């Protein structure tokens, strides 16, 4: 059964066709990767799904529901979590506070109850914290709990951002270049976590990634895009062997001759 269905999605910025007729569907429990050269429109697809951009045409369906007209802040409560290519954490808060912010969709208290800090608020805070502690344990962030984001190394920030997305308790997690800027060991950690998310948490993973070894290792299916258009879809090996994909990355012999 497909959890996320993207149908003929397109967005044009003036004359620039950033994404132009991309269709794919992601099955529940699948790890689906989108690859492509720089500027291919991979992150734009993510921004369309998380409703930051308004599509020019096409539809996005999640869990049988059309989400094309929803607001960007309504997406998280459906169970769609995401990370950003250039880490977007709350720099002046602790790791713990950042993860707790991921629980926003699960709050049921209003601001008056919050100001009075009624017993209900405390009960919910305990529950949020318990859930966040599970994420901290999963990603081995115990040592950083009370550290400010502003002082943390890049690799840890990347992990905290994945943690914040997991704290939402999503059905699908959109990872925008989870391994960019990470060392080989850290990339291996990410690979294991993606495996665990799928196996233990029953999560569906949609990711954009340049590191082909990571893509090959974890993904079930791969979609290659270039210039906003889909090139090929299939297993990592199939896509890598595709002549169109090779042409997009390496150029064609004819072009070289010309």
């Amino acid at each position: 059964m497909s959890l996320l269905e993207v149908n003929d999605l397109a967005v044009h910025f003036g004359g620039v066709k950033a994404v132009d007729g991309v269709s794919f569907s992601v099955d529940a429990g699948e790890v689906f990767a989108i690859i492509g050269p720089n500027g291919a429109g991979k992150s734009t697809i993510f921004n369309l799904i998380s409703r930051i951009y308004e599509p020019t045409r096409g539809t996005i369906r999640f869990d049988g529901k059309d989400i094309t007209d929803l607001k960007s802040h309504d997406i998280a409560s459906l169970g769609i979590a995401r990370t950003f290519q250039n880490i977007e954490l709350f720099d002046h808060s602790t790791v713990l506070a950042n993860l707790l912010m991921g629980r926003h969709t699960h709050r049921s208290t209003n601001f008056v109850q919050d100001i009075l800090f009624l017993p209900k608020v405390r009960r919910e805070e305990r529950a949020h914290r318990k859930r966040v502690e599970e994420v901290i344990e999963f990603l081995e962030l115990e040592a950083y709990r009370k550290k400010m984001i502003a002082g943390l190394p890049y690799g840890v920030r990347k992990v905290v951002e994945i943690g914040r997305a997991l704290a939402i308790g999503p059905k699908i997690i959109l990872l925008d270049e989870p391994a960019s800027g990470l060392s080989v060991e850290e990339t291996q950690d990410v690979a294991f976590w993606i495996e665990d998310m799928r196996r233990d948490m029953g999560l569906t993973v949609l990711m954009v990634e340049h590191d082909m070894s990571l893509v090959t290792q974890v993904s079930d299916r791969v979609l290659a895009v270039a210039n906003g258009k889909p090139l090929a879809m299939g297993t990592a090996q199939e896509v890598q062997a595709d002549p169109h994909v090779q042409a997009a990355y390496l150029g064609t012999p004819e072009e070289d001759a010309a």
Partner: protein
Amino acid sequence: MRVVFKKSYDPDIDLHEHGWSRAKIAVLAGIMIILPFLVGNYYLAEAANTLIWALAGMGLMIAVGHTGQVSLGHAAFLAIGAYTDAALMNAGLPFLLAFPAAGLVAGLFGAVIAIPAVRMSGIYLAIATLAVFVIVEELVILLEPITGGVGGIMAPSITFFGISFDRYGALQNFYWLVLGVVALVTWGYANLMRSPTGRSFLAVRDSEVSARALGINVTKTKALAFGLSSGVTGLAGALMGHYIGFFNYELFSIFISINLLLVVTIGGLGFIQGAFLGAILITGMPQLIAILRDNLNATTGIDLGSVPGLDTMLFSVILILFIIFEPTGLYGRWLKIRTWFEIFPLARRDMFRRQKSYLKTERMK
């Protein structure tokens, strides 16, 4: 350095992690409560003034320090609070109803203007709030039957439960009233900041795009923050009206807005404590300068009072030095000093140097 052994999540949720910091707050509260018996009327009135400024500072801190919404128009909310309170009391309403109503009116007004205004940010929002200030100032002059126009209005004497809280007749009671309001607001503010609402404010301040991705309605959150901010400032305005006694539109000038902004910046953006430290500095500094000048005159015969603008210059120099050398404000400086002692002798010179932050995705804002 104190290590707290935690057996549940509650110490992290509580306002204070351990008994020691609770005791410190209790001692501070105790001193503030018995202050009328320790100092004379002049200094007690100054203390009340400082508390009122701290209250207004907390109001602005919610918007500027915790939600990242710069406002140059907060004098307008002080004015709305002061005039609403005075007008309702003149119409016969008791203080206990007029005072919360003043906060409510200022808060609602703030929230309503925030809905269009918070779509702007930074300098544009500052200019928009400045425009709001000018509009409110004109309205105050135009609504003469309520506000007394250019001539001004008298803030009636406060009496409830048969006890007088008049600023001149019963200064001690007035001081305790102000202290009580400030304590309540501080408690509510601290609660807010440890709750989901407070976290959503911080989220909006630090990264709007990821706040949205976490399901936070940014416009609503900003409007709520701005509403709470102007509501608290409105309460401070009502008390300021009673403190001054007789006031007109000139009391709430643009300089009050700027001074308020200085309170939160010099005090320490993003810390409730900063509003208090900033208020102490802003209200205390002119006093200190005056005392020093008088002493200098008495001991050496040098009369600096004849030099025009000396106070203002000294004041400005101190502010500029702060902004250059201690952008985290007085509270930030205090945190550094405290850490230095806590981890002595391991403190390093560059421990607090700000790290270069990684590239933000500006284009998605």
